[in-house]
């Protein structure tokens, strides 16, 4: 059993050795968390070395003029996939731009074993911002204070990039609350920035980072916000005071530093590993507090342009108007988008540089922020205006703001939008082209006099009991009974007509069938005289009835047949003889006149019948 265990351990060691031998070659990458940043905001640089294997020495200082780059710590990641173990080390740096511009972060060399690896060159674009006034000195938290209390369990920092500002100016603020990574935060409310004379934007979600500060690892929560001074004077921002419940490993008197760990860097020397169960941690309520920061707030200079409404920052404006062909009085919507960084909450809509001939409606606005705090973004205003006269363009929009970096007022103006205004009716905001009433006197634009309404009507007039459309009332559906009745009657008549037609057709078919049968019998020349004349006369009756449908065959006599077929005298006489012979045979008894029916007589009779058409 013992032998088997040893073999297993040796096999595992052999596999690990083989994996190390065939491990991938080391790689290095470097990334910026953002390539675009504004002055006053930080960005993280991460240099990651994969499959390093041995200890490395990262560059502690990266010197780029205009950028403050601070090493904030490292993290190691081990991954095991299909018995293949890989590791990577990430070195973290915080970059704080001091002024706007495009910066190149040069390649950094790190020696890994026999190889000398180089990071790629990185580009960082820094945009201007009001907070760039911090260029004169270190923007990194003059108020910064690491709270060393609570045995370095936690600290609080209040980072304000400026010491002076203007009334209404938005000043970004970062609150940092850090906890020793060997503790666990059980409960913590978002911090609050206290003070008088300024308003503070709502704090965003805390951003959690692992940072190495003075050789110790801290979990740091970064809360971004912005404040805006409401009046002139010297103010004190903060201090930020934060209470939190943290779980701290219990100190164990039996834990001693290991003899081979002179720098106390062995992670297994931590008390947590001496007592590796959560139940051995104890909860502490700690109170961390930052230093306050002083801020001098100056008044905005005199000489504000008439279109200045309190916006402080740095902005740009675009505007468009639609439609571009309208009638006098029709509404035109002007969309003005103001983008940039500043106090959007105090920003009013831009104004028409020349309002003569225009009627304005109250504007509406919509703000889309580009950051967590709401000090940069785009505010879109919709202004509805209507021309009172035949104007040729929508005048430029004017928007003024105070730029705290340039320390002067700036007025933005949009382009004038060409416009076609048709008609000279009185200014009427109607979109619908309602025809003017007979009493609506046509006047023109601003010269229009105040009109008075027409007189009262004392007659009450026709009474109605419903606004519902006619087809939704019962009267409409009752009225449909009239055409419905008519249609039903028409349908009944049509059915009767069709049935009658069918009966006549059926009768005609029967008659035709009988006629054809009799004709065949007569042509066979085998009939006795009595039958022959009976059938022949019947055939005449059938043909007459077929010729004139309202005649019953049995009622047809020689005269009727002669009239219907318009026979001449000779044919009529033969027809009479035919019917007389039939009657003679029928009423005088069988056998009489048998010899009188010759072949010629039969042929003549047949010819007479066939000639009837």
């Amino acid at each position: 059993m013992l032998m088997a265990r040893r073999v297993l351990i040796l096999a595992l060691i052999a596999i690990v050795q083989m994996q190390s031998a065939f491990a991938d070659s080391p790689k290095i990458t470097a990334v910026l968390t953002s390539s675009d940043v504004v002055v006053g905001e930080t960005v993280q640089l991460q240099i990651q070395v994969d499959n390093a294997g041995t200890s490395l020495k990262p560059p502690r200082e990266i010197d780029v003029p205009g950028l403050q780059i601070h090493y904030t710590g490292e993290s190691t990641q081990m991954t095991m996939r299909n018995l293949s173990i890989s590791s990577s080390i990430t070195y973290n740096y915080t970059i704080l731009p001091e002024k706007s511009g495009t910066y190149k972060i040069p390649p950094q060399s790190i020696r890994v074993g026999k190889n000398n690896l180089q990071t790629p060159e990185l580009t960082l674009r820094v945009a201007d911002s009001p907070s760039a006034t911090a260029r004169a000195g270190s923007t990194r938290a003059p108020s910064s204070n690491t709270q060393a209390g609570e045995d370095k369990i936690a600290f609080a920092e209040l980072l304000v990039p400026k010491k002076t500002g203007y009334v209404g100016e938005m000043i970004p603020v970062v609150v940092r609350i850090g906890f020793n990574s060997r503790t666990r935060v059980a409960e913590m409310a978002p911090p609050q920035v206290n003070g008088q004379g300024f308003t503070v934007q709502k704090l965003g979600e805390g951003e959690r980072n692992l940072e190495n500060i003075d050789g110790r690892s801290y979990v740091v929560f970064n809360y971004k916000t912005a404040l805006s001074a409401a009046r002139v004077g010297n103010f004190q921002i903060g201090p930020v005071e934060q209470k939190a419940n943290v779980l701290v490993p219990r100190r164990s008197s039996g834990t001693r530093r290991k003899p081979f760990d002179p720098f106390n860097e062995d992670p297994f020397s931590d008390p947590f590993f001496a007592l590796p169960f959560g139940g051995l941690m104890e909860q502490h309520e700690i109170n961390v507090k930052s230093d306050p920061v002083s801020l001098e707030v100056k008044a905005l200079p005199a000489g504000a342009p008439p279109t200045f409404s309190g916006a402080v920052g740095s902005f740009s404006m675009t505007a468009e108007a639609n439609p571009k062909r309208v009638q006098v009085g029709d509404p035109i919507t002007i969309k003005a988008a103001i983008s940039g960084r500043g106090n959007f909450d105090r920003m009013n809509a831009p104004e028409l540089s020349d309002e003569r001939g225009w009627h304005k409606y109250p504007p509406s606005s919509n703000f889309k922020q580009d950051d967590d705090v709401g000090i940069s973004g785009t505010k879109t205003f919709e202004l509805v205006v209507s021309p009172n006269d035949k104007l040729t363009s929508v005048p430029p929009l004017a928007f003024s703001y105070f730029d705290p970096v340039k320390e002067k007022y700036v007025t933005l103006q949009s382009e004038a939008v060409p416009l076609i205004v048709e008609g000279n009716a009185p200014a009427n905001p109607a979109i619908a082209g309602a025809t003017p009433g007979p009493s609506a006197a046509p006047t023109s634009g601003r010269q229009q006099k105040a009109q008075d309404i027409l007189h009262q009507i004392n007659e009450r007039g026709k009474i109605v009991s419903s606004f519902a459309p006619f087809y939704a009332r019962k009267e409409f559906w009752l009225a449909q009974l009239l055409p419905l009745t008519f249609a039903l009657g028409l349908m009944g008549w049509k059915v009767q007509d069709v049935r009658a037609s069918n009966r006549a057709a059926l009768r005609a078919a029967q008659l035709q069938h009988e006629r054809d049968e009799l004709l065949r019998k007569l042509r066979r020349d085998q009939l006795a005289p009595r039958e022959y004349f009976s059938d022949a006369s019947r055939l005449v009756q059938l043909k007459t009835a077929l010729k004139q449908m309202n005649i019953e065959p049995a009622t047809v006599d020689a005269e009727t047949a002669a009239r219907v077929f318009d026979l001449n005298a000779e044919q009529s006489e033969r027809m009479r003889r035919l019917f007389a012979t039939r009657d003679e045979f029928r009423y005088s008894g069988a056998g009489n006149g048998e010899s009188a029916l010759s072949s010629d007589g039969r042929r003549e009779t047949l010819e007479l019948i066939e000639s009837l058409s």
Partner: protein
Amino acid sequence: MKLRARFQILVLLLFALPSAEGASSGGPRRTGDDLFAKANTEFAAGNFKAAIADYEAVVGSGDWSPNLFYDLGNAYFRDGDFGRAILNYDRALRLDRHHPEADANLRIARDQTRSLELAPSALERYLNFATADFFAVVAAIFFWLTIILLILRPGRALWTVAGIFLIAICGFAAYRSENGSQGQGLAIVIAENTEARIATVDSARSVLALPAGSEVLILQERGDWNYAALPNDQRGWIAASAVEKVRLL
């Protein structure tokens, strides 16, 4: 134009005979006549609020007339409530689309408030020559003519298809007229400083500021808020108390 007018009159005479019983003019005294006369007297004396109360009482009785709403609109106008003045002029025109006094005063009231109107679609502008009632009646006529044609000449497929096509066209026109910008959902903003918002809370972002008398098309009613189509093709939520539908139930 004359031919069309005669055709409309003929159609309405043929199909609206039963409704003539429900409508009357003149004759014996009717409910609210005294109140209406009293309201007129109060209006003439300049007691506009009292006149409004009396006119509203007549409206409440359910015996409506274009002149009643016109006079009520005038009373609101004189009282400075242009939103309700426009609403009642609209109602007068809804009952009688050729009421010249209501049309004239409506334009004056709209000039006063600079109210916004819903833009009719291209189809609605084209169909504007007649009302939904007219299209419904014409659709009914085409329906019965097609039925009669089918009875008398059942084999005429082309005529049948043409009849069905005309019925569909007129039915669609009636539907569009009834459900368009001037249809059953049309409402007038009666409150001052009304804002259409993106959500059903007062603090929600404003979509459009609507002067009193502006037209909106109610699309959905949800409690104290109405979702409405706004002028210039926008939509938003408006407090139900700030708008009133033109069509009374």
